[in-house]
């Protein structure tokens, strides 16, 4: 593919709001995970909660969008001056030429879960103040973002579970390549809710402690929430050191709804497609941000695919021990982490992981370390067997 410029990017996770907090945590190996005290949830698990989300107040004209997920969307958009960069792009290209491509798994379903506790005792009706379209629906974060910036062009939400906000980069890249838009707001937002907390617990996929990706004793995920965004534009004006999207690869496992292909076949296809798209060989990748959810099955399958393609030649880590698994936002969060790794020449480590699984034959980084990162690969895999790999680099 023709490289695209990430002219601005930002991430808000349990590590904090914006790049400075993210950068500091990655450098010193700290984690944002804590025992779950979210809402009325009673589960022995740890989560990555973003502080201060519910203090966000949406603009009065957009009050219909008010819910935790859109509060987190706004919080993320306003971090690091990202929203101002979007407004500048809108001024440059016009409101019809800036597209919106956002990933989510559950959007604002928490709003519906809460509304179901307030049903009319006689009729069973949901309360009048509950608005499905602007809170629950998977498009609500994309429509909110489009309205937030007064845009009038293309917009879509991509919802392929935990690969959602990696796949938005590929979808936006296609429209930029075709010339149907001049810039794209891409990213992902997912917020804590009962469906995912109790759902992953029902599958016995949540850990009772902070998650330990690639650890021999790993026993499940820690669910997190996040909002992460990038502004994608054509790269003609890129300056030396600017972060570029170089390649995208997508595939399907065609295997099982909630378990990965045991040999990591779909994962391998996605990584191979990303390398082809970027015109790079495996030896030109300097860091892999692994999907690394810390479930026994995911890390074993991904590890096999990475070992088959890269052996022990390329260092990698999962940063989910720091942020938690932010589900539909994970692809965008970890794209931003790759951008920071390239910009700062810092390979992140894996908070929480202590005893590496000896059955996984890859170069896994427990601690952050300095190192030249020319090209970084990010993996995102989701329920339904949806896989996406992205490759980032720096402009020469």
């Amino acid at each position, binding site marked *: 593919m023709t490289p695209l410029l990430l002219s601005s990017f930002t991430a808000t996770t349990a590590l904090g709001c914006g790049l400075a907090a993210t950068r500091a945590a990655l450098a010193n190996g700290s984690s944002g995970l804590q025992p779950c005290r979210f809402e009325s949830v009673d589960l022995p698990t740890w989560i990555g909660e973003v502080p201060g989300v519910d203090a966000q107040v949406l603009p009065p004209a957009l009050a219909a969008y008010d819910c935790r997920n859109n509060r987190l969307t706004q919080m993320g958009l306003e971090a690091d001056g990202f929203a101002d960069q979007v407004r500048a792009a809108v001024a440059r290209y016009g409101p019809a030429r800036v597209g919106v491509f956002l990933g989510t798994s559950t959007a604002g379903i928490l709003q519906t879960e809460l509304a*179901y506790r307030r049903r009319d005792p006689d009729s069973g009706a949901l309360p009048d103040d509950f608005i499905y379209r602007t809170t629950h629906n998977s498009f609500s974060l994309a429509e909110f973002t489009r309205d937030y910036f007064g845009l*009038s062009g293309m917009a*879509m939400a991509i919802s*392929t579970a935990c690969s959602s906000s990696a796949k938005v980069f590929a979808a936006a890249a296609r429209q930029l390549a075709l010339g149907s838009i001049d810039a794209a707001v891409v990213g992902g937002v997912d917020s804590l809710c009962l469906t995912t907390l*109790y759902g992953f617990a029902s*599958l016995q996929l949540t850990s009772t402690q902070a998650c330990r990706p690639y650890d021999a004793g790993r026993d499940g995920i820690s669910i997190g929430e996040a909002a992460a965004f990038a502004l994608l534009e054509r790269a003609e004006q890129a300056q030396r050191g600017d972060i570029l999207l170089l390649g995208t690869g997508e595939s399907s496992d065609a295997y099982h709804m909630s378990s990965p292909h045991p040999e990591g076949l779909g994962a391998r296809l996605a990584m191979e497609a990303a390398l082809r798209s970027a015109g790079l060989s495996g030896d030109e990748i300097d860091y892999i941000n692994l999907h690394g959810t810390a479930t026994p099955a995911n890390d074993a399958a991904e590890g096999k695919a990475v070992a088959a393609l890269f052996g022990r030649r390329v260092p990698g880590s999962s940063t989910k021990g720091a942020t938690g698994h932010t589900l539909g936002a994970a692809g965008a969060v970890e794209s931003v982490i790759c951008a920071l790794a390239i910009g700062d020449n810092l390979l992140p480590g894996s908070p929480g992981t202590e005893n590496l699984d000896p059955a996984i034959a890859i170069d896994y980084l427990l601690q952050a370390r300095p190192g030249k990162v020319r090209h970084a690969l990010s993996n995102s895999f989701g329920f*339904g067997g949806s896989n996406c790999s992205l490759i980032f680099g720096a402009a020469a």
Partner: protein
Amino acid sequence: MNPTLNAWIDGIGFLAPGLPDWPTASAVLRGEQALIAAPSLLPAPAILPPAERRRASRVVKLTLAIGLEAAVHAAADVATLTTVFAASGADGHNCHALCEQLATDDRQISPTRFHNSVHNAAAGYWGIATHAMAPCQVICAYDASFGAGLLDALGQLLVDGQPVLLIAYDSEYPAPLHAKRDTPDCGGVALLLSPQQSERSLSRITVSPTDEPAEHLADAALESLRTSIPALRSLPMLQALARGEGGRVCLDYLAPMQLAVEVQPC
């Protein structure tokens, strides 16, 4: 710069209330027979193993029915096809059951209900049924979902030079969510889109942005389907295809952006 987004339609699958397949729908769209109101008929998916077939949800039956109809129409091999799913919502019945249980003191939800709650559940079952390991996209844009799916399907087709199967579909929510989102029944359309013309090609389409209002259908029952089931915002284009007519139709997308579709029969 506005690009020329064009493709050939090689196959069509269709299912809506009173319209069980594309041959019936096209006869109604041509005015040869009347639309007789009836609930959507969702066939048991023969492609799934018997146990899975019995458990298959309404959206899984719907997407397998229309997707396979379009692929058979085009004589395409489903195991190799890139797919784009576009839906205004996930499985409404499953969502209701989860929310209802999470509002009680017993929050131990079923793991199957949970994995079926994802927006890409139907796409996941499509992969399992067809063994397709090609890219699979799953989009939501509320009422604009058909247009969003068409735009990304054309994007993949033009950038990768491969055929793409677009499966746009919607389903209903039960009460009490139905009062908040009143999609009446299951319905959808599947289009096998190809970057080159072949002997299978039915028509060429060229898609461009516009701010013109969408075409309405003269038949009130068809027009009601167009406005109540988001995937059926495609009906004006499908009517031109059914009639074998060339010309320009305008479809609702995301106000103020609409999609103009130039239809050229092969």
